[in-house]
């Protein structure tokens, strides 16, 4: 537990909107250890995608990082300029698997030329153009074969619309691996797929992670997918980290009231259909306290005014909830 590839500390981020300042992320903390898969889980609008955008530096206009650090291999990404991010980090050391592969591929170019362009851009070398293209092409064909795309040589000559949803996802996974990245960020890569295809893609990702020694940040809203793929898990609610730890341990013994409520909604566990009463608060009127407090069944007076930031225990388990803020519970 001592070799973090990605370490986010105290990340606070706000976005200026027409209606005021929205506090989108409030003190996000997590660590991705090298060679592990970390699941980032939350409902829509909780800030999962904003965390990713902050890591790769593609925040929307009006966004401001107020505090915190994002360390990748020990280097704070927030201090790097656009040029450095482009040449050294984005696409080459950190690559991205999007939710919708059809939007990520250009419909008017052949798949082969798009994949080769990624290689040319991120893996430049001094050899002659023909020799380099040949090498890049061979690597791509090998990767497409590895992601089990049928007939990889012919696939290079086809257009994105000629592939099915599952095949397009395989293409994008191959593209993400093309530059031998150290970290792969996947944003709900299986949400748009059918269950049997989803199972194939999850199997593939699990194999590739071992084979290529990948560290992966896997964003999803599906706890079942997390249980099947991720080593560790981080639950976010309305821009606040609520609970993190080892996946199996966390799912078996959730502590935070939100995690408990969320798991109780899952059809695998629910005794009857019960939602969580109330709605997610607007980030425009965020107070200082726990944002789950208005919906929490175990709320205390303190919860509204301040929020505990507990340390992780020996097993790396952390719960940001006042209920666990008692001296005997905190272990460092």
């Amino acid at each position, binding site marked *: 537990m001592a070799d973090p590839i990605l370490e986010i500390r105290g990340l606070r981020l706000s976005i200026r909107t027409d209606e005021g300042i929205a506090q989108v992320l409030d003190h996000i903390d997590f660590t991705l250890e090298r060679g592990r898969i970390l699941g980032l889980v939350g*409902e*829509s609008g909780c800030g999962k995608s904003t965390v990713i955008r902050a890591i790769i530096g593609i925040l929307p206009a009006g966004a401001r990082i107020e505090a915190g650090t994002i360390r990748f291999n020990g280097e704070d990404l927030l201090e790097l300029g656009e040029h450095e991010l482009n040449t050294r980090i984005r696409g080459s050391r950190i690559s991205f698997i999007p939710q919708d592969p059809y939007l990520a591929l250009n419909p008017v170019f052949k798949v082969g030329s798009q994949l080769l362009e990624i290689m040319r851009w991120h893996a430049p070398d001094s050899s002659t153009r023909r020799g380099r293209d040949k090498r890049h092409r061979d690597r791509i064909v090998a990767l497409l074969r590895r992601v089990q795309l049928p007939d990889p040589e012919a696939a290079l000559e086809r257009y994105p619309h000629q592939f*099915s*949803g*599952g*095949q397009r996802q395989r293409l994008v996974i191959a593209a993400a691996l093309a530059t031998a990245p150290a970290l792969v960020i996947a944003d709900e890569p299986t949400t748009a797929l*059918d*269950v*049997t*295809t*989803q*199972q*194939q893609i*999850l*199997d593939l990702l699990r194999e590739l992670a071992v084979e290529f020694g990948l560290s992966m940040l896997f964003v999803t*809203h*599906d*706890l*079942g*997918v997390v*249980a*099947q793929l991720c080593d560790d898990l981080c639950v976010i609610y309305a821009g606040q980290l609520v609970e993190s730890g080892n*996946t*199996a341990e966390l*799912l*078996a*013994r959730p502590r935070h009231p939100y995690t408990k*409520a*969320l*798991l109780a*909604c*899952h*059809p*695998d*566990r*629910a005794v009857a*259909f*019960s*939602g*969580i009463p109330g*709605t997610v608060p607007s980030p425009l009127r965020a107070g200082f306290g726990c944002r789950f407090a208005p919906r929490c069944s175990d709320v205390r007076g303190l919860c509204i005014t301040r929020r505990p930031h507990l340390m992780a225990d020996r097993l790396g388990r952390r719960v940001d909830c006042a209920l666990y803020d008692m001296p005997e519970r905190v272990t460092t």
Partner: protein
Amino acid sequence: MTAAPAIVELRDVTVLLGGARRWLRAVVPPVRAVGGVSLTVRAGEIIGLVGESGCGKTTLGRTLLGLQRESAGEIRLDGVCVSALPPKAARRRRSAIHYVHQDAAAALDPWWSIGRTLEEGLRIHGIATAAERRVRVDEMLDAVGLDPLTRRRYPHELSGGQLRRVALARILLLQPRFVILDEPTSGLDMSVQATVLNLLLELRKRFGLTYLFISHDLSVVRRMCDRVAIMYLGRIVEVAEADQLFAAPRHPYTRALLDAVPRLDPSAARPVALHGEPPSAARLPPGCVFSSRCRHAEPSCREAEPVLQDESGHAVACPRWRDIGPAVGGRAKNPVLALA
């Protein structure tokens, strides 16, 4: 359940889409979207229709509604034949059947207030005066758990869960008896999904509805439906009571589908994934439609298309299901609760 009369019956319904016979050019054969589907829906039940994208679930729903004309077969509503009609006449004869669109936001006019949208249906059906329409809309908003003030709002002001409620209110105003719900929970968060499903159950009781629940989410179907039909490439491959189907699936496709659902228990055994992808509906494999991906396929499977064989309420379209051994992935009811 068996005592309830059938509300909708399908007999060998086939829907062919597209296809063209053009002068001096090659004939384009039609695509078989739904192939010989027979299904009986009993009054008051929730029947799930499950399958992957492109398997014909939505086409079947549209055909029931009368928007898509069936190419062959018979549809009966309350025992009366309502098939073989042009779309307009079909829709009139089937006014007891209504449809809730899968994308509630896309189904509502962004320029119309919720109140106007809801009153439109009543106006088209010539119901009552403006004052009475308003009373009915208010009652219905209350029934689906929305504030009466919602009538003045516009679709973009509402959340996904609220839009679903509006979509439900809109069709319930027309007093349907049979409602086709197309992916009623797609795109909703887990906590919102549960409240929408609860509302559906409550409305069914209150208005005496029957649901055709089209979904690809097996965990939701399992909890919601009385009976479940599994579809693959336009064919129904298995129909059974939900408990029975999930506890002891028979068709190899059903088994693969159930195995593919990610479970909350990380220590659960990971079954082998189904290989390949469904073939295109334009090039169906000969014989059993699943034979091209089935682990247990034999040459005999590719000779004739198997028909649904009913056996004490559990119908399966695989003559060999007994030979392929019991299902491996029988899911425990609450695997994680048992663990905790």
